């Protein structure tokens, strides 16, 4: 097992190098001197800001030196300082906003699992039933749904017309004066819509995948064997088949991480949630380059770590993987 983990970690090295090269390439996207073009397009960038940008990326040095000094700073999480008036270190700004983003994403991942897996399994077990057909239609709609639009509609319905749920922020104005339990309920009320919506995007994919997986497993020889032994259909489906069909889901969940993290930009902007996605959006709008670069790198590394966790848990669950 340890051997497997070490091997996986080793394979991460070229990916990490690639990630840094692409991020570094994005900084140098503008032809000519990046500072000139960036500052020309950004009226807010003074001569001083230009100087800071030059110092941060060592833009007066040869390109390979620029890259290595950038990576060296990255390794100790020195992402430079934000261009915004507060002028704080980028790493601090990201770290204080990361927990809420991760919290929402973990909740929605949990929600996806709890909803999509039973739907997929049931649709497969009752293939061609009414339930299967209805969910197939819902899956098609789910794939085509612009989630930010769904967010608007739900805000209009639950926020504006019914007035049941708050539509922005994560806390009410009187948050500080509420007793702990009401404060917690207040937080939950603010998170219901964002979590539901960010889960929505993954529901269609996972339930479809689960259905296909289950259908394939049901056709395997060992299921026929289990039936031939005289086991009840219940045991065959929910014990023998389900366990095997669940295994690849771990990988799919790992693969869905970049989508969830990317989606946080949209939800956090719509619902005014002070997370990493909103920070990223504001940084893009104000051309706060150090913050943009920092979040891009961190987002990619989070994905890499998520995939590693998925691979390792797959190996824990399925010994066949470890041997390869």
């Amino acid at each position, binding site marked *: 097992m340890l051997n497997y983990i070490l091997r996986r970690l080793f394979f991460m090295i070229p990916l990490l190098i*690639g990630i840094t090269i692409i991020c570094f390439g994005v900084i140098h*996207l503008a032809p000519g001197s990046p500072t000139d073009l960036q500052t020309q397009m950004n009226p807010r960038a003074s001569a001083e800001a230009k100087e800071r940008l030059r110092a941060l990326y060592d833009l007066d040095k040869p390109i390979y030196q620029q890259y290595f000094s950038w990576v060296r700073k990255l390794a100790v999480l020195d992402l430079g300082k934000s261009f915004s008036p507060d002028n704080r270190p980028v790493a601090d700004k990201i770290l204080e906003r990361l927990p809420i983003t991760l919290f929402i994403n973990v909740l929605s991942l949990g929600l996806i699992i709890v909803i999509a897996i039973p739907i997929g399994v049931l649709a497969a077990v009752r293939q061609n039933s009414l339930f299967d057909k209805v969910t197939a239609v819902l899956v098609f709609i789910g794939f085509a749904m612009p989630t930010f639009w769904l967010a608007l509609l739900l805000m209009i319905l639950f926020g504006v017309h019914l007035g049941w749920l708050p539509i922005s922020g994560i806390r009410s104005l009187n948050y500080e004066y509420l007793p702990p339990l009401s404060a917690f309920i207040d937080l939950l009320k603010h998170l219901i819509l964002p979590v539901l919506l960010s889960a929505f995007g993954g529901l269609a994919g996972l339930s479809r995948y689960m259905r296909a997986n289950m259908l394939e497993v049901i056709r395997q020889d060992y299921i026929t064997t289990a039936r031939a032994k005289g086991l009840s259909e219940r045991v065959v489906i929910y014990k023998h088949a389900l366990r095997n069909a669940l295994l690849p889901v771990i990988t799919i969940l790992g693969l869905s991480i970049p989508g969830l993290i*990317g989606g946080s930009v949209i939800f956090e902007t719509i619902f005014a949630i002070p997370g990493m996605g909103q920070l990223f959006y504001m940084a893009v709008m104000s051309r706060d380059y150090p913050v943009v670069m920092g979040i891009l790198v961190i987002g990619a590394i989070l994905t890499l770590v998520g995939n590693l966790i998925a691979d390792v848990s797959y190996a824990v669950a399925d010994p066949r993987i470890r041997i390869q």
Partner: protein
Amino acid sequence: MDFWNRYKKNKLALTGSAIVVFFFLLSIFAPWISPYDPGAINLQIVLSPPSAAHPLGTDQLGRDVLSRTIWGSQISLKVGFVSTGIAILIGMVLGAVAGYYGRWVDTLIMRAVDIMLCFPTFFLILAVIAFLEPSIWNIMIIIGLTGWMGITRLVRADFISLKERDFVQAARAIGAGDFRIIFSHLLPNAMASLLVAATFGIAGAILTESALSFLGIGVQPPTPSWGNILTDGKDNIDIAWWLSLYPGMAILLTVLGYNLLGEGIRDTLDPRLKS
């Protein structure tokens, strides 16, 4: 003709093609069928609800939402086709080279795919836009440049399974070069999966563009796009529901159309793949 006979029986595919054709016609004939000029401001009828004169209502500048939605279909179509074209071109070439030559070229290209897949696509697109100006052309190029990875894997897999077949050996035996084998013998056989991928790609690109325009970093006003009409909808969320409802329905329908079309083509071309 076998293809058409099977296609005609596929109800989902027919629905999909009907939707796609409908929006295609809408965008081509936009100048003639839209009742008003999409940019015509009329401050006397600001944010008026749907009525006989303005079936989908008006926005905060008194512009006709129906006309703006009709013109918005042009943007979606353009972005969908151009960015998918770029992604297909890159994915086709890289996938063909990786699958055909194998060995270190294959490893190199596949690592590049893995690296690109580490980035949350939306983050990468936003970061690039922060450095460039948001314009429809930049959007199309960026969506294309971040969408080739799946296609590369697909073409590579096709090439690997095809390149040892007899007809390729035969072509090589009569002296055909690599270039000729790739383009006139292997690629035509990979066209089916490319076509399906392209259809799904267009749907994805339309969704991405609308999200970008909604966030204000895609197609810039006053050019109407479905995404930026929805921005107006969000700004007037407590007064004007019609600004939020209709453009979103257009996005949903269009994307649904391309997805159904893709499924239909796949089922018809290769019934074995039917899920």
